[in-house]
């Protein structure tokens, strides 16, 4: 299940009472809704599977603590993505003293293609097209890469802007430039 609309992002009065009554159940429900998407986001931005598992659980646990302490979390998914990024940055700093999400595509994501059940020729063309897109993704700036991945996980431009503390116009421009660049490089 990965339907971002299943739970409203803004905690309404009804949801707030659910949180008060049973925060662990509320967080477990959120996990059921968003875990796949967030896990995928981590893998696509370069985390290894074992690290992604730990980061994901740590982020949800942090959300649980915040809710228990009465903090207001208006948009849980956006909050979780931001927390995941912070946790990952902290971990990388601890491990190597620096972090760089920029790098080649292989560093960003060590996943491999899987092609649909196609004829050999179709599979080859499909593979080539996705490969071009993969390379094009590798040519994006770190910010463009981050924004378009967030958008592909269902975040709105306004949510991305709020998360990064920039204007919605700036996010829209970055995303539009990235999409145009992807289109251009993919069809070269």
């Amino acid at each position, binding site marked *: 299940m990965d339907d971002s609309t299943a739970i409203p992002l803004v905690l309404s009065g009804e949801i707030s009472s659910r949180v008060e009554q049973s925060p662990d159940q509320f967080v477990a429900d959120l996990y059921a809704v968003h875990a796949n998407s967030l896990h995928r986001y981590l893998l*696509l931005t370069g985390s290894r599977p074992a690290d992604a598992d730990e980061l994901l659980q740590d982020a949800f*646990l942090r959300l649980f603590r915040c809710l228990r302490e009465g903090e207001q979390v208006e948009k849980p998914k956006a909050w979780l993505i931001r927390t995941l990024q912070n946790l990952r940055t902290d971990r990388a700093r601890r491990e190597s003293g620096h972090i760089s999400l920029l790098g080649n595509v292989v560093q960003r994501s060590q996943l491999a293609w899987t092609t649909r059940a196609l004829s050999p020729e179709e599979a080859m063309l499909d593979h080539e097209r*996705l490969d071009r897109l993969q390379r094009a993704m590798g040519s994006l700036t770190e910010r463009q890469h981050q924004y378009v991945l967030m*958008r592909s996980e269902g975040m709105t431009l306004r949510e991305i802007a709020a998360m990064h503390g920039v204007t919605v*116009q700036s996010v829209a421009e970055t995303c539009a430039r990235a999409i145009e660049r992807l289109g251009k490089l993919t069809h070269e």
Partner: protein
Amino acid sequence: MSEPLHPSGHPAPADLLLHLEEPSEPIRNHLAGCVSCQSLLADLLAGESNLAEWRDALTAQAPPPPPVAALQARMRTETAPLSWWRRNRSAVRWTPAIALAAAAACLVLIFNPNGIWNPVAVEAAEILRHASEQVHQTRAAKTAAAPRRYRIRQAGRDLQTLDEGKLQLARIDRHDPLNPDDYARWRSEQTEKQDTITRGNGWVRLSTAVLGSHDIESASLTVDSRDWRPLLRSVHFRGEDEIQMEAAPVEAEISRQGAPGGSRSEEASPLKPPAPLEAATPAANSEIAMWEVLHAAGADIHSAAQLRRQDGSVCYELWSEPGERDKVARAMQAIPGAKPCSQSKSPEREKLLEPISAGTAAESPSLALLTARFGDKDRASQYLDDVTRQYVVLLAQVTALDRYLRWFPPSRVDALDGPTRQRVAAIALSDAEAVTTEANQYLRLVGEGLAALAARPAPASPGGPASSAVRCTSIESASSLLEDLRSLHREFVTLFGSGSELASSVERTARTRDALEHRIAALCVK
């Protein structure tokens, strides 16, 4: 949002994107009557859709997130009643005696093998990290080194089946049981555990014993101590004999390295049973015979002819020169079931002859250096033509190899009997040898151009043909070769054609050339 319509009268792409989420009346009105903006909007939407497809394709085989039960267990721990210390810490007075006792306890805690600073745990994590990196690098390099067959044994006997529930419990992927990331996940889920590291001749084993009463008593992962390649994984369920999983990609590799538990048995893995032998089927024989005809006539390379599936059966393509077409058709008549495709689909013709534009090239500083090297402009142009021609020849060869290997993937070849497999391999080997010969020629030519720009000395004479071990040539390696080849030609065309920043372009071309050379050298060396 900024002004919805720019001075040009059209909204900016960013505004169109924003309009999708926060509709704007002026933009809506504009879109209704502006075809170019409608087209731009459609392109943006298509771009996002492509992105989602890329994401899905890339993550389709990714492991799922941990089950919610693991999170719930951690949340329960958080909500458990406070410990005595936390409840009473305000009441405890920090006296010198307590401080001394606490310091002593800390020292015990730190230097105890099970304490906070646990060198074994650190080393265990390091082993898993190395093994994980090794596996990822192997996959990223798309080499054929990743083992495809696995053997599961228990008490010295091959296991025919393994319970799915047990696999899940031990975090074992039946298609990739030696995955170190899976082992790391399982290990991280064990709240109370004790690691042991054992070293042998050429191997290191991480054993993890689970403390307390659980279904799994212990598990281990053995890796090659030289390159961290996972060799063996075991899991010990309570009350049962230990189950061992090992890879068998290279003959007797594990046994040679002395990893305990290794077996020389050539029996097929119960995780991935071999497909029934295919050679006896007339269809398989016909397919191989058809490929042999195409290959013998050179149609698979010069005309890019191939076999295709059409209306549920296999047919051969014919779109070569008339004389050659007749020759192929006559040879095909002798093959039972061979029929030409009713519609020969022309493959996507790529820009084989990327123009190294004379107009632009005339202003290119690299071309000036090339002219100086060759003495006059005509010879320099001749050189560029030679490179392009050689690129086309090589591209045709690599594409033919790639197509052929896709038709006979390793899983299919493995299912064939010995003689049939040799027939399949003969064409691949012949293609691979041709690729190596042509590639060396191409690399030499490109090297000459780089030497002209003083990037490096002129290359030595080309290397020999491919070795006879065609088994190492896989679909992945042929595809990668194709990509590397295209990349190099793109760089080369940029270097001599566009007049771009010379130093960086030379560097990129040299680097890409080295990558292709490396790929060619590795094509069939194993």
